[in-house]
């Protein structure tokens, strides 16, 4: 009797399930790729990436079926509604066997009772591996006041995100400029701003908090870049101001009145610089060491208009020799890209770790590219000396901060293309010749995540392993006396 009841129950359940997905008859071909969010049509992804869950941007979608298959016929199938969530394990397995191949996404949707079949779209699986994860700051895209924010890390092969540190731990504080030595999570620096503020330095796992303002320098240290040896960090020191547009799609204008570049000697707790990097006639900012550690790239703008006219500020991309053994600078400065001559400006030069390319942000004026919708990413080829826009990565909205993976084959960059305000992290493949694949938005378990979040993804950086910051130690170090840096002039 019990068996009969069980069979009836099973039959009912089966019928119920069957009725959820209506029979497919007369499937209509749309002849187009589906409109999905995030747009994963034709993107290039690494093998170890989390499932590309997406939402179908059609009204009244009740049911959908997705078949993902590789060229060898290995496939996985998902039945869902408007939102497609791909099972993690099956996805991982499919990617493993599809390295260097492409996957075809066959999507059919049921809308108002009728089935539609979209043209299948490809997703390319690069054979170039990607790092463990990303680190970024989550902050509401605001103005002067900040609420909760923090520095977070996210594993790329899953959806797991952890807070490295949140500003709720140090009430009233702001956190910014997290930076790693070539994706090495054991060597990290970040700034905590506020009454308890300081620069937190994680050096081979050892933690210290620095007071970086000296009487010789303009400000606390700001934009960082680690020397590949881990012995130095180049920082800018900036006198920055912001003002607000009243009738413009742009909201904010952030600009420097003055800025210099200093080098922090990690072992000696000293800052040093040279005349080329502290010229009163120029503003120097956004330093970046070359991967061999023998050059320092930076942006520099003339200060020849007083009072400073914001729209006349234009930065060029420069380079100076640096001797990591002695800490001495070269005797001249090279101009790699004279942006001002083209009525343009540049920010965030980021050399690939193989030394071949420098990606930088190019826009109309100033140095704070995130508030410039026209800001795009450009690629400088150090071999040929040519500059070209990264067309595949750019949009009609802001593309700004960017950084390289440890193998120099992936780049993560922040873009406002989705809604014009909230910065989101996109990842793109760049091959050895500088050809870029179509970027993909960092996948989230729920594709609605980006609609529901209050935060921008700020300063995305690759990390090779998880950051292990001991918060109890950090609290102690922040509340105790900080290490006061001293400044010394090096040479010209």
């Amino acid at each position, binding site marked *: 009797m019990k068996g009969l009841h069980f069979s009836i129950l099973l039959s009912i359940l089966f019928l119920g399930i069957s009725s959820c997905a209506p029979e497919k008859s007369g499937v209509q071909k749309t002849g187009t790729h589906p409109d999905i969010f995030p747009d994963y049509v034709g993107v290039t992804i690494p093998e170890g990436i989390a499932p590309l869950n997406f939402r179908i941007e059609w009204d009244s979608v009740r049911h959908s079926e997705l078949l993902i298959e590789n060229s060898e016929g290995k496939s996985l199938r998902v039945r869902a509604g408007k939102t497609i969530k791909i099972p993690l394990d099956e996805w991982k397995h499919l990617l493993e066997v599809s390295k260097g191949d492409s996957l075809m996404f066959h999507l059919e949707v049921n809308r108002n009772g009728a089935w539609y079949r979209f043209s299948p779209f490809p997703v390319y699986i690069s054979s170039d591996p990607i790092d463990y994860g990303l680190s970024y700051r989550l902050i509401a895209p605001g103005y002067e006041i900040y*609420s909760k924010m923090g520095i977070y890390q996210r594993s790329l092969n899953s959806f797991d995100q952890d807070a490295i540190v949140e500003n709720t731990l140090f009430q009233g504080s702001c956190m910014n400029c997290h930076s790693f030595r070539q994706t090495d999570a054991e060597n990290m620096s970040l700034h905590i701003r506020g009454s308890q503020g300081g620069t937190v330095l994680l050096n081979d796992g050892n933690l210290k908090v620095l007071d970086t303002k000296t009487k010789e320098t303009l400000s606390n240290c700001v934009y960082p870049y680690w020397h590949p040896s881990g012995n130095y960090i180049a920082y800018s020191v900036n006198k920055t101001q912001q003002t607000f547009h009243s009738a413009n799609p742009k909201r904010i204008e952030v600009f420097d009145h003055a800025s210099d570049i200093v080098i922090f000697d990690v072992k000696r707790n000293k800052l040093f610089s040279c005349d080329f990097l502290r010229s009163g006639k120029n503003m120097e900012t956004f330093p970046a060491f070359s991967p061999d550690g023998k050059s320092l790239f930076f942006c520099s703008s003339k200060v020849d208009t007083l009072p400073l006219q914001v729209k006349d500020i234009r930065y060029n991309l420069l380079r100076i020799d640096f001797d990591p053994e002695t800490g001495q600078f070269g005797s001249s400065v090279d101009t790699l890209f004279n942006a001002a001559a083209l009525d343009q400006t540049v920010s965030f030069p980021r050399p690939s770790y193989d030394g071949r390319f420098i990606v930088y942000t190019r826009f109309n004026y100033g140095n704070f590219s995130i508030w410039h919708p026209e800001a795009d990413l450009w690629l400088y080829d150090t071999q040929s000396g040519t500059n070209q826009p990264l067309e595949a990565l750019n949009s009609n909205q802001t593309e700004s901060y960017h950084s390289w993976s440890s193998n120099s084959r992936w780049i993560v960059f922040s873009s406002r293309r989705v809604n014009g305000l909230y910065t989101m992290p996109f990842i793109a493949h760049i091959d050895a010749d500088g050809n870029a694949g179509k970027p993909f938005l960092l996948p989230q378990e729920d594709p609605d995540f980006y609609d529901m979040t209050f935060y921008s993804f700020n300063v995305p950086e690759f990390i090779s392993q998880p950051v292990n910051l001991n918060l109890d130690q950090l609290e102690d170090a922040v509340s105790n006396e900080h290490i006061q840096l001293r400044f010394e002039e090096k040479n010209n």
Partner: protein
Amino acid sequence: MLKKISLSGLSSLLLGLVIFLFFGLFYAFHLHYQEQYQLFLFTADYFFERVMQPGGLSNYLGAFFTQFYFYPWIGSFILATLLIFFQRILLGTARNLGAAKNFFVLSFFPVLMYWGLLCDENYLTGGLVAILFVSLSNYLYTFSRSGTVKILFILLGIPLLYLIAGGSVLFFFLFLLIYEVNEKTRSWKFLLLFNLLGVLLILTIPFFLKNRLGMFPPVPSFVGVNYFRFPINFPVIVVVIGFLLVALPFVSKYLSSRQFPFKKSILIVQVIVFLLFGSWFIHRSVDFEREEIMEYDFYVRMRKWEEIIHKAEVKTPQSPLSVTCLNLALGKKGQLGDRMFEFFQKGDEGLIPDFVKDFTIPMVAGEVYYHLGLINTAQRFSFEAMEALPDYQKSVRTIKRLAETSLIKGNYVLSKKYLKILQNTFYYRKWATYLERAMKNEDLINQHPEYGVLRRMKLDRDFFFSDQEKDMMLGIILSEKKSKLVFEYLMAYCLLNKDIQHFVQYFPLGETLPYFTIPRHFQEALVYAWDVSKSEVIKDIPYPINREIQSSLNKYRKVYTSQSNPQSLLRKDFGDTYWYYFHFRN
């Protein structure tokens, strides 16, 4: 029916009714205020984000209740119910301990104190929920005498209650401790084990969970619950209430066991003390001035301009924020130039407040900029107000405003993002869905009585915002868009700053605006300007001036120049003129 209800039950009902009426009738705008400074979402992410910290469930439930405060009577009902529930639990605990019936009034004291706390808009409902959880746990504890059950209570209760109600768990442990010490039958071994377990759990659990469930400094991390909007402030009075909720049942029990000479009058004494203390405590807790400001602000938020003017006609507002709301209402109804000096004025601070890093002033100032058509600034002020919330909450009012400003600026994708968030709220879901649908029809937005008008106010010429040059900004808007509101604000700005020179200079900017007559205060300023320049006013002044105003000025001048103390003489007949403001106010 009433015969079946005990005296204590009737008293609870009565107190509940008083609390309900108090919040519903006299403190409704405090409830509105609370509601706007949070964003409760019916989403799993919001739930987990809120709950995954010490005391998180109390915060979550507090926010859940607060979302209904948009309807003050529902809010009043919720608060009255929670407070009376608190009282009944306390009473039940005392009775389970053996307290006599005639000591029931004691259980009203902590409730009264929490009611007083809630009169401060910065005390949040989640705190009351946490205290309720602790009281309920204490109450449940009194039902069993089994040692095993007691040990289970302490083993499971402390961790669980810490997660639910944060540091208030201390009052649970204290209650248990006193309870067990009072149990004569307990062996010293049991007491030792019991106390050791309790102390160990109380010390280790918060320590273990610190920075694992949210990252907070030691004290806020232990307290957990947002009793107070400013987490940096330790809620001392809540601690007093916590000790009371622990002690009162035992005190009731102790008093019940004593022989008093006038047993029947004990109840009367309690009632008298309660009424005296209650009146004093509530009186010192309420702040009707703030209630008034919140009322003005709420009317602005709801665009209830006539209610504002009517309220001011009954009692002129005094605080700068209320005056700001009134001036905006006068401007929206086209009465600013005619009536602003009928009311108390607070300089340009009461017209367009300066930006401060705060969550109240920029919210109101942002409303002014919004209606003036400075959408970027309105957006910024509202956003900054939200970000300034010290308890790291988001503001539903701000999110709504951001949806509106994005819509007006034509960024539909961004507007939809905010609307999608609002679609997960209780009250704003319908509005958000309607607006999202409306976006599909551009004409509908363009014809909207508010959004359409503000869209047409969009400026071609950009300029940087400057708090110090508000007149310049208003002038720039006016040079592009002919708006009576902007014109009247510009003129009012000059008048309030007693800047007659710029008033006269800017006045021609309004020449093409559709006025039948020049607003009264502007005429007053014009005749005064020409008068002080020693011109023959009526003859020289290039604007149509009402003869009554001219003769009125003559009378005013006569008194002003001939009397040694003219203010008191002029107040009656000229207190509502610009001249009086110019000479005697501020």
